């Protein structure tokens, strides 16, 4: 029999994929009532712990027919709780989110009433969003509104982390024991932070109780259902589920099944106590599960079929949880249901050996069979990774739905060591979210927002003025025509960049402290190394490592702008700067010669041409050096990532025509990929250009490559893919992902979305259904240089 999902998994997957995403008001309602009754009675961390306990004690449980891994954030699959303590949606938001075509969240009349009469009256003026926006400077507000940068913490909490091994080896009673010891160790005689630590630890302890209560409630439910169940097979399963819940989450898991269930409870707890970016990924799941897999197989209670089925049950669980609803600019920068839960497979072990094991291959099989955009599946390829594993991953990747993406283990380790991690912690780490690297289980590596680099360059040309918003956003350093040399232009750009980054970081610093003070995350702190020991919250710098990032967007666009100006205006003198600006102001309409010179006859990034690539290196170094190493307010340091999610579409929309011939409002380049259709020398040239960036001094970069199927067909095609990956990684490239699809298919899919409902494409750091993307993004994917070779 051909391999494939069994009947159970097909049924669960169908429910998950076909259930419309809907808002679940239960969490908001319980939280509002809890705060109305208790606000002011307890310290903030204790309140957070108590609220989680109350929610888990009262929330509607869901144990679906056929499920083996259990637990939902809301009352059923695709139910999405809201987080009014962070962002309290207006009555209008409740309607818009339900009626918008893409990434919609259904709200009922009842939901809207609850929001209007219960939630809004309490939370208005009390949310983190209110606190943040009222503390930002006028400059920050103007830049934010104009699209100079985005702010990640405006609607969602910090998170951006990934679970470590402890999640699979620790019971919540064990955590409680650890907390008890830490409480006992508080030095009330000498430590000025003693009381703060005490309250934080108390909050953590209560949060642990919350998870244990959730487990107990599910245990009772499973037993009840088993009593009533007529099908003996299902009855036995329910009894086994109940038996598992006698162990987890209270105690450390003893079996493969329990280990997965334990992780899932932790995932639920972290993503319901707050609304952190990037959910909570399971880290190196293959390595964390292998000893359970081996022991259970040995004991005869597990075979590959069962092991795969349990993974597939987990995959359904991920897909059941859409990322919490976003509105406004936050929606634009990340227009997706994807919550960026990542599965990372392969890599190396903490002692540096090849990390690929039998569970790794099962995960690949699972990913292949499930074809779900969530979780986001990746493989981490090291020099030690067997070719068999790489090829199996390529085989799945070339099917054209964008997964798995490929990460470079050695680059990740170097990036982490460069940022101050120990070798062992670095090997335990990897990439989560989109592509960002962290020490899993031990680090808060928080992304703070995207920086619109091409727009900063536009300001430079217009004396700091932004023609799109009509505001003076930058410094008045002169107009483009004033810059007599390329160096003068460059120096002005440098000052504008520094100025805008300062505005962003000043805002970040305030936001960071607001979160540290007002919005602790006790359960996330419990499962992240050293928070308990330090008696300090994850959001206050309690983790072993703390870093923050500003993600640079549009490096391809800005490079080509500078190259076009340097080449045509200063070197070849093909036209003057005034002529160029005039052409740009007219969106190049009627300026064909200038347009063709900048668009088709100027050096471009992505062609292994040092003229353009050295400019990319300059821009990158400037951006990196302006940010990297600056102190954060909770004891960490800043770094950079080069990734866009969907922000390059939004950022492009707020920029007029640019000097590289990009028309007004078109997307800017994504990740570190070249500007659309600027790369004309094939994928090796793209890879060479991209590798000239010093990836090891970042915490992650993103490179997209699209292929038509013929390029990667057959055994030779697999070898070609593997060669591109191995070579890019040998040159220290961080990440590469492939869309294997032909252009015609995409054009057809755009015309007839109903006929191509299944079509998945790699967007940027994640995959999504093509039909879920809006038109400019669809257009961009269609036009993303098609690499076809005769």
């Amino acid at each position, binding site marked *: 029999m051909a391999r494939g999902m069994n009947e159970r998994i097909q049924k669960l997957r169908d429910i998950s994929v076909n259930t419309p995403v809907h808002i679940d008001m239960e969490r908001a309602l319980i939280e509002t009532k809890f705060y109305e009754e208790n606000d002011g009675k307890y310290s903030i961390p204790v309140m957070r712990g108590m609220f989680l306990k109350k929610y888990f004690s009262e929330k509607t449980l869901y144990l679906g027919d056929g499920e083996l891994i259990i637990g939902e954030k809301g009352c059923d699959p695709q139910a999405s709780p809201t987080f009014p303590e962070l962002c309290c949606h207006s009555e209008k938001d409740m309607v818009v989110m339900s009626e918008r075509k893409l990434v919609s969240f259904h709200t009922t009349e009842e939901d809207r009433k609850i929001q209007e009469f219960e939630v809004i009256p309490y939370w208005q003026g009390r949310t983190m969003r209110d606190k943040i926006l009222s503390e930002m400077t006028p400059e920050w507000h103007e830049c934010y509104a104009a699209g100079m940068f985005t702010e990640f913490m405006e609607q969602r909490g910090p998170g951006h982390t990934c679970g470590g091994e402890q999640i699979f080896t620790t019971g919540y009673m064990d955590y409680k024991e650890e907390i008890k010891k830490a409480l006992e160790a508080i030095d009330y005689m000498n430590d000025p932070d003693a009381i703060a630590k005490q309250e934080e630890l108390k909050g953590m302890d209560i949060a642990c109780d919350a998870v244990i209560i959730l487990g107990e409630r599910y245990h009772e439910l499973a037993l009840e259902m088993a009593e009533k169940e007529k099908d003996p097979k299902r009855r036995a399963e329910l009894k086994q589920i109940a038996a598992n819940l006698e162990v987890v989450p209270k105690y450390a898991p003893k079996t493969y099944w329990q280990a997965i269930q334990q992780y899932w409870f932790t995932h639920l707890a972290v993503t319901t106590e707050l609304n952190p970016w990037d959910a909570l990924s399971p880290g190196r799941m293959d390595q964390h599960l292998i000893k359970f897999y081996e022991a259970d197989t040995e004991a005869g209670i597990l075979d590959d079929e069962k092991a795969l089925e349990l993974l597939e049950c987990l995959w359904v669980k991920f897909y059941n949880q859409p990322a919490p609803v976003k509105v406004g600019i936050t929606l634009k920068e990340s227009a997706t249901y994807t919550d960026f839960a990542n599965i990372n497979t392969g890599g190396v072990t903490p002692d540096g050996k090849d990390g690929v094991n039998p569970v790794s291959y099962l995960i690949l099989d699972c990913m292949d069979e499930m074809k779900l955009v969530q979780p986001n599946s990746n493989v981490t390829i090291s020099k030690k990774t067997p070719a068999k594993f790489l090829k199996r991953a390529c085989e799945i990747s070339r099917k054209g739905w964008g997964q798995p993406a490929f990460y470079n283990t050695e680059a990740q380790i170097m990036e982490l060591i460069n940022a101050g991690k120990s070798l062992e912690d670095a090997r335990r780490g990897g990439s989560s979210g989109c592509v960002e690297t962290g020490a899993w289980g031990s680090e808060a590596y928080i992304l703070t927002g995207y920086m619109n680099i091409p727009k900063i360059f536009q300001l430079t040309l217009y004396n700091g003025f932004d023609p799109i918003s009509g505001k003076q956003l930058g410094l008045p350093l002169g107009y483009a025509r004033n810059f007599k040399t390329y160096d003068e232009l460059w120096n002005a750009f440098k000052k504008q960049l520094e100025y805008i980054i300062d505005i962003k970081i000043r805002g970040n610093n305030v936001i960071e402290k607001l979160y540290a003070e007002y919005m602790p995350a006790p359960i996330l702190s419990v499962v992240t190394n050293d928070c308990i020991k330090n008696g300090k919250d994850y959001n206050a710098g309690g983790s072993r490592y703390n870093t923050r990032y500003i993600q640079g967007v549009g490096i391809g666009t800005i490079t080509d702008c500078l190259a076009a100006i340097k080449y045509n205006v200063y070197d070849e003198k*093909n036209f003057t700067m005034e002529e160029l600006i005039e052409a740009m102001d007219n969106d190049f309409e009627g300026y*064909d*010669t200038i347009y*063709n*010179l900048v668009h*088709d*006859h100027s050096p471009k990034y992505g062609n*292994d041409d040092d003229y353009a690539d050295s400019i990319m290196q300059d821009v990158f170094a400037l951006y990196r050096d302006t940010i990297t190493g600056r102190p954060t307010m909770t004891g960490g340091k800043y770094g950079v990532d080069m990734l866009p999610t969907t922000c390059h579409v939004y950022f492009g929309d707020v920029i007029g025509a640019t000097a590289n011939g990009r028309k007004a409002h078109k997307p800017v380049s994504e990740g570190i990929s070249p500007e659309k259709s600027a790369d004309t*020398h*094939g*994928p*090796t*040239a793209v890879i*060479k250009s991209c590798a000239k960036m010093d990836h090891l001094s970042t915490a992650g970069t993103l490179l997209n490559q699209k292929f038509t199927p013929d*390029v990667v067909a057959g055994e*030779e095609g697999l*070898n*070609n893919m593997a*060669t*591109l990956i*191995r*070579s890019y990684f*040998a*040159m220290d490239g961080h990440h590469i992902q492939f869309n294997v699809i032909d252009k015609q298919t995409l054009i057809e899919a755009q015309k007839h979305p109903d006929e191509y409902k299944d079509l998945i494409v790699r967007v940027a750091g994640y995959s999504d259904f093509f039909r879920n993307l809006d038109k400019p993004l669809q257009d961009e994917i269609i036009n993303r240089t098609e*690499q076809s*070779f*005769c």
Partner: protein
Amino acid sequence: MPLVTNIQKFSIHDGDGVRTTVFFKGCPLKCVWCHNPETQRFYAEMMLDEDKCVHCGMCEQVCPEGAVSMVEGRPELDQNKCIHCGKCEKFCTAVCRENVGKKYTVKELTKELVKDRMFYEDSGGGVTFSGGEVMAVDMDFILAMAKSLDREDITLTIDTCGYTDYENFVKILPYVNTFLYDVKVMDPELHKKYIGVDNKLILENLKRLSDDGGRIYIRIPTVKEVNGNDANMQATIDFLNENRIRVAQVNLLPYHDTGSGKYRRIGKEYEGTELHAPDKDEMEHFKQMFIDAGYTNTKIGG
């Protein structure tokens, strides 16, 4: 110094692994189906896409040598005056002009070709010289290039029609890893009709090259109306057998007309409009003929 029309990276159908293919300009043959008509003449040319041209006269205006003149609204190029500076191409309002044929020194070309070394090494690839006909251009240059790549330890594949003085093969053989050797039509008359010359020299050279130890991939561009039949395939097999040609691979390349659009732009007329590729089953059948004859490493495509 020979002219180069294109340097194609990540070339995956012109020999082993990931390669960079250099197309040299100029060819002694004139295959009816040629899909690189811009590589036929030995001198530099300007391709003009008349459908795009807006007759603005910008090319005439920017030409520093007065080589372009507008005749009845159409730009005409004086080959004798043109210095191939590329200005008319760059300033063209309609992106309808394209210079074909660029000079490189050995050093410049080597610099370009070592760029993808990393990919060659991982995939067992290297550089392919194609054309045009590389064995018919300035052999001193080609030999110097071959030596230069050899010093860089980059393997070289030569894609050739075989129509050249055998001495040229003797010179280059020590520096070449593989020859992609075209065997188009066995019947000398048909060969003359479709290719412009008789195939005697080509087949003699093939035998000598094989005897001298060259590693050879036999390439057969397969056209239904010309050579896509059992008789020709059998004759090819017989020739290979009788002359004990040591064949490392056979590639049956189905005809395609993707180059036909270029003819008008280069000021020529495409004469292959009536040609077709054999259908898939026929191609499989030809492939089987070679396999049955012992050429087990036979593939459809490059």
